[in-house]
């Protein structure tokens, strides 16, 4: 038996580029590089020729030009005289708003549904699995359109609120009007002294945190268990309300009023936003429910039993033993669900909510004809949003994972 030497004898031969594992990977990468450059040449050449044939060039000047279209839901100042760049910014904010709302709501729905799927109650369990299966297996676009159609068709028009004996009436002491043009709500008016009330409110939140720390210290150092829920609850509301009353209602409300055929004043949430928000929340909630269920099931039964043996009550077993461990399993898929919500919010274009896709990828693209620039910019925006969400959530996830030695 002769052993083959590790290093081939003799000098470098060309065939070693192919057959020697030390050099082969360089060969492959060089070929890959050439292939990439060839693709660049093919795509770039076609692009340049096609653009020249169409008399176009690549330029982002359109972002500074006047947009000339209106956006019905605008979180910042915007008129049709504003620039396309500002329209894109409004769209970006609208995307973030609906994504945030939907993430929060979907988490709540998902956690509730996921816990209820494990309920001892057969009927509740069945209802929840029905909910999960129905929503998971039907495209989110169809849900958005269904909910939007319901909002448009099943809610009264603003003029139904008109007259001495209106067909429809406003909710919550004539403050909220649900119409097919959106939900009209009172908006706060900041009068003199509002800052005081806000300051008191912020101070009371700080107070809640300090109280909780105190209670924890008492529990850990002296073994005294202090109830924290009701004091926190009281601290949250009472000082701010007191300040509001003492200072003579500095924070007022502007109520929506029916003028002509539509409501004026107050704060409006468009039906398209509500449809998108609800649809994304309910649809993604079904996925989150599955993640939550899987996370809870992943905690071994011994944990529950050990906690019970220590004499913890079922509620405390859930909140102190099972959920903290389940969270580690739940959070990574939850992050990807949040990313999905953000990306799915681009379906806003189907119901006319002016998010990033509706402004930059929709009207701006059509008006300026700058397809390549607009689509590239659109993708860049989404890429940045996605990457930053996953970056932040990964930091959070790393802080949650088990610290092992």
């Amino acid at each position, binding site marked *: 038996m002769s052993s083959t030497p590790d290093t081939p004898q003799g000098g470098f031969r*060309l*065939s070693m*580029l*192919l057959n020697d594992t030390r050099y082969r*990977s360089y060969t*492959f*990468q060089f070929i*890959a590089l*050439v292939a990439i*450059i*060839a693709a*660049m*040449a*093919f*795509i*770039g*050449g*076609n*692009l*340049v*020729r*096609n653009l*020249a*044939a169409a008399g176009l*060039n*690549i*330029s982002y000047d359109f972002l500074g030009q006047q947009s000339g279209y209106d956006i019905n839901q605008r979180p910042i100042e915007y008129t049709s005289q504003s620039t396309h760049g500002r329209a894109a910014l409004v769209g970006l904010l609208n995307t973030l708003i609906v994504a945030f709302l939907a993430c929060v709501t979907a988490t709540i729905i998902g956690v509730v549904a996921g816990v209820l799927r494990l*309920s001892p*109650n*057969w*009927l*509740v369990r069945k209802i929840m699995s029905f909910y999960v*299966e129905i929503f*998971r*297996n*039907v*495209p989110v*676009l*169809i849900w958005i*359109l*269904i909910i939007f*159609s319901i909002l448009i*068709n099943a809610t009264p028009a603003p003029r139904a609120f008109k007259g001495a004996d209106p067909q429809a009436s406003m909710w919550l002491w004539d403050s909220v009007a649900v119409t097919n043009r959106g939900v009209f709500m009172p908006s706060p008016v900041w009068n003199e002294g509002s800052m005081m009330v806000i300051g008191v409110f912020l101070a009371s939140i700080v107070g809640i945190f300090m109280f909780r720390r105190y209670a924890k210290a008492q529990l850990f150092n002296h073994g005294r268990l202090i109830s924290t829920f009701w004091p926190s609850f009281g601290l949250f509301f009472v000082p701010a309300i007191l300040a509001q009353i003492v200072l003579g209602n500095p924070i007022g409300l502007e109520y929506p009023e029916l003028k002509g055929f539509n409501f004026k004043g107050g704060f409006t949430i468009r039906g398209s936003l509500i449809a998108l928000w609800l649809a994304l929340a309910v649809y993604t909630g079904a996925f989150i429910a599955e993640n939550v269920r899987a996370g809870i099931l992943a905690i071994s039964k011994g944990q529950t039993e050990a906690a019970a043996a220590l004499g913890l009550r079922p509620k405390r077993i859930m909140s102190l033993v099972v959920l903290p461990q389940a969270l580690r399993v739940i959070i990574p898929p939850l992050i990807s669900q949040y990313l999905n919500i953000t*990306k*799915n919010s*681009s*379906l806003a*274009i*189907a119901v006319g909510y002016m998010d990033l*896709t509706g402004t930059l*990828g929709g009207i701006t*693209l059509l008006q300026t004809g700058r*397809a390549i620039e607009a*689509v590239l910019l*659109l*993708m860049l925006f*989404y*890429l940045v949003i*996605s*990457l930053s969400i996953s970056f932040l959530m990964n930091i959070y996830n790393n802080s949650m994972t088990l610290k092992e030695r």
Partner: protein
Amino acid sequence: MSDTNAQSVAFVRNSEIPASPPPLGETGPVKWMRENLFSGWVNSVMTVIAFLLIARFIMGVFPWFWNGVWDASSIKDCRNIMADAGTAGSACFAVLVDRWDHLLFGFKYPATEYWRPTLAFVLLVVCAMPALFAMYLPRKLLIATALYPFVAYWLIWGGSLWVPVVILGLLAVTAAIYLFIEGLSVSLRQAVAGIVGALSGIGLGYLLYLGAQELWFISGNVSAGEGIVSTVAGFVFMIAAIFTYAFFIPMGIFVGYAIYNSYEDGGLVTIVTTLFSLYALMVYGLGPISAAINSVVPIELEAVASRDMGGYMLCMILGTVCVSLSIPLGVVLALGRQSNMPLIKGVCVVFIEFIRGVPLITLLFVANVMLAYFFPPESSIDLILRVIIMITAFSAAYIAEVIRGGLAALPKGQYEAADSLGLNYTQATRLIILPQALKISIPGIVNVAVGLFKDTTLVSVISMFDIVGMIRGPIQQSTDWISIYWEVYLFAAAVFFVVCYSISQYSQWLERQLQTGHR
């Protein structure tokens, strides 16, 4: 024994007491209800609330559904019928009857040819069986699965039968060429390798030379623009051009030599020759041969253009084609991402993360408005093909991530064992790594496939008429069925639910089947 006891001890019974039935509360439905519905006061309250909700739901939906009108020509007609019957506000399913064909096939597919996609769908279910239930059906039936794409293509797009048949024939010829070269004696193969190597070396060198010219042209064109971006881009292209100018001759010589050098074991020369002959046969053989046969024995179906596809059929086409294409692509991407070659790994990472970071809609925008700029002006790639390209890229990135998870879950010992058996990378991957990694990845792949199938509805946003596009366009905007929504959307939801739910049930079943007790 009992006899003796019975005789010796008077108070011991000598017969068994007949078992009395369990108490009423501990048996049958009562027990079940007590345990599952009323086990505590919280549970009882929840049961009552849930029951009320269900009752309310059924009371609302059932009359709506039951009194639905199935036979009417327009929504007005429908409302009149319901008003006469005193069931105003019920469902108007007549729209489904009236627009059934539109919902399923779109509004442009020739009405006389509806049997073709229907047959293709039935065959899809039949031909998928051997692959789906591979462990119960004979392996030979997989031939049907392999033939299905050709049959389905012919059925749906029509045209001459001889086109798919000739493609099949040419594939067989290619396979024969492959076997022929592999079977050649070493000296003959050396000659073949010499010729093929020289030709492909020269060809590649020439192509690279053209590419270098192209890059130089782009560089000049781009840097003529204003701003720092165009300067940088022009510089990048210039570097690439110089690089290619410097390397096109050595590259050609090297590749030619590499092909020639492989004559002993045959790998590279066989593959290159086979690919060459496949290309030549497809480009120069397919058209003339199929036309010739067709002129002698014409078997033709009416040809249907891609842009005439619509309705649920379009979703099915996009779903099946893109899923089947994206699984191999996803495997390649996942392996590339695991690779220890930085350039290849980098390309795969950038591709996967880029695709996963943007919504599918933006990729569809790319397909709709941008992709045409990337192809030569004279080529006209139709929208459906561009959409297939983008959706395939999209789902391949997601599948790659799923498979990467499967690869990462494999114990390192598997890789090491494969190495210690002396398997090379290809063998180890094909025989040891992928079978196990794919098995672990099945649930994830199915999730991606179901998600992808649902996402095919997004093509309605770029004005293609899939089922949602049909509803939002030709149906809801027609005078007959203006703004009807419940019935049509519920129908669309139902057809998607049936398919997606079955797929996920199948995957759960498959997971149980493949369970080998350990991972």
